[in-house]
C-alpha cells in the first residue's frame, strides 16, 4: 500500500437510514476523507452515479440503505442492492475491483454501525490501495 494513503470514500445514504451523515463524518475519522450524498430513498442511487464517484477520485463507495423490509418506499433498498451488485460486476470487468463498492443495511441513526462500516472499508482499502483509475 502507498505510504500516507488517506482513502477517499464516497457515501451514498438514504435519509431514512441515516438522517445527516455529514455531521457524523465531518468531525469523523482522521483515517479517511468522506464525501456524503443524501438521497430521499436508496433506490435513487443510479449506476452512473456510483461510477462517476470513482471517476471523481473515490477509492471506495459505500451505499447505506434501510434494513430489508423497512424501506419507506417498500422496495427501494432492494433496487439499490441489485444495482450495486450490477455495478460491482462492472467494476470487476473494468479491472477496478468490485470490492471497492459496498452496500450496508443500516438502522435509522445507528452511529456505531456507521462508524464500524467506514472502519471496515478503510481496512479493506489498506489491502486494495488507491483507486488505480485516478
Amino acid at each position: 500500500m502507498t505510504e500516507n494513503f488517506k482513502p477517499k470514500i464516497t457515501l451514498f445514504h438514504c435519509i431514512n437510514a441515516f438522517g445527516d451523515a455529514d455531521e457524523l463524518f465531518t468531525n469523523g475519522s482522521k483515517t479517511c476523507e468522506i464525501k456524503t450524498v443524501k438521497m430521499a430513498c436508496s433506490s435513487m442511487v443510479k449506476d452512473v452515479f456510483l461510477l462517476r464517484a470513482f471517476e471523481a477520485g473515490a477509492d471506495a463507495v459505500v451505499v447505506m440503505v434501510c434494513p430489508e423490509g423497512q424501506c419507506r418506499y417498500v422496495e427501494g433498498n432492494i433496487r439499490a442492492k441489485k444495482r450495486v451488485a450490477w455495478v460491482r460486476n462492472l467494476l470487476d470487468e473494468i479491472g477496478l475491483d468490485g470490492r471497492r463498492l459496498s452496500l450496508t443495511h443500516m438502522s435509522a441513526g445507528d452511529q456505531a454501525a456507521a462508524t464500524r462500516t467506514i472502519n471496515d472499508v478503510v481496512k479493506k482499502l489498506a489491502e486494495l490501495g488507491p483507486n488505480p483509475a485516478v
Partner: protein
Amino acid sequence: MIVGKQKSISEIKSIIAPFKKVLILGCGTCVKTCFAGGEDEVSVLASALRLACKMDGKDIEIEEFTVERQCENEFIQEGAPAIARNEGVLSLACGAGVQAVARRFARTPVLPGVNTTFIGVLETQGVFTEECAGCGDCKLAVFGGICPVTRCAKKLLNGPCGGSQNGKCEVNPETDCAWQLIIDRLRILGQMDNLRIYVAPKNWQTSLSGGPRKMVREDHMI
C-alpha cells in the same frame, strides 16, 4: 421491439482501440427499453470506459449523445455535430441503426456496441422474450396469436410433437411449449376448429433466407 444486449467492456475496448476521440451514440427507442443503448446506458458505458482506459494508461476522449431513433435520417441528423467532432462512433443501436448511421456518415467509422438479439416483448420487468422471427408471412390468425415459428423449438405448424411435458418444451424445460399455449388459447377463444386447418410447409422465401428484403410504399415516396 428489437432486443439487444450490450457487448462486454473488453470487446468494446478492443473495438474502439484505434481511436482517441469516440462518440458513444445511444438510441432512444427499442434498445432503450431493453436497457442496452438508451441515454442511461450511454452514460454508464462512457463512465466505465473512461475508468477502464485510465487504468490502461490510454488517453481517450469520450463524448455522449443519444438520438430518438438511429434507423431514420431525420433523427440521425441531430447527432451530426457530435459525430463530426469525433474520430469514430460507437453506436448502441441495433444493427439497423448502426448501418443507418454508417450510411449517412460515409467517412466516419461507425462501430457496434450492442449485439442485436431478437424481436421480442417485455414479458415482465427486466425479462425479454423472443416472439417474432420476422418471417414475412404471418399466420398468427390460425394459431390464436401465438407463433410456433418463433416459439416452438421445432417450428411445427400442424400440432405439437410428442415431447411436450407438463406444458414445457422437451428442448428446454424452462420454455413453455408453444403448442400447449396455442391449444389453451384456442380453447378460450372457442376456435379449436382451427386445429383442423392444414398449414402448408412454410415458404421461407419471404424470410431473410430469401435474401435481404425491401418494402416499398409508393404512396409515401416523394
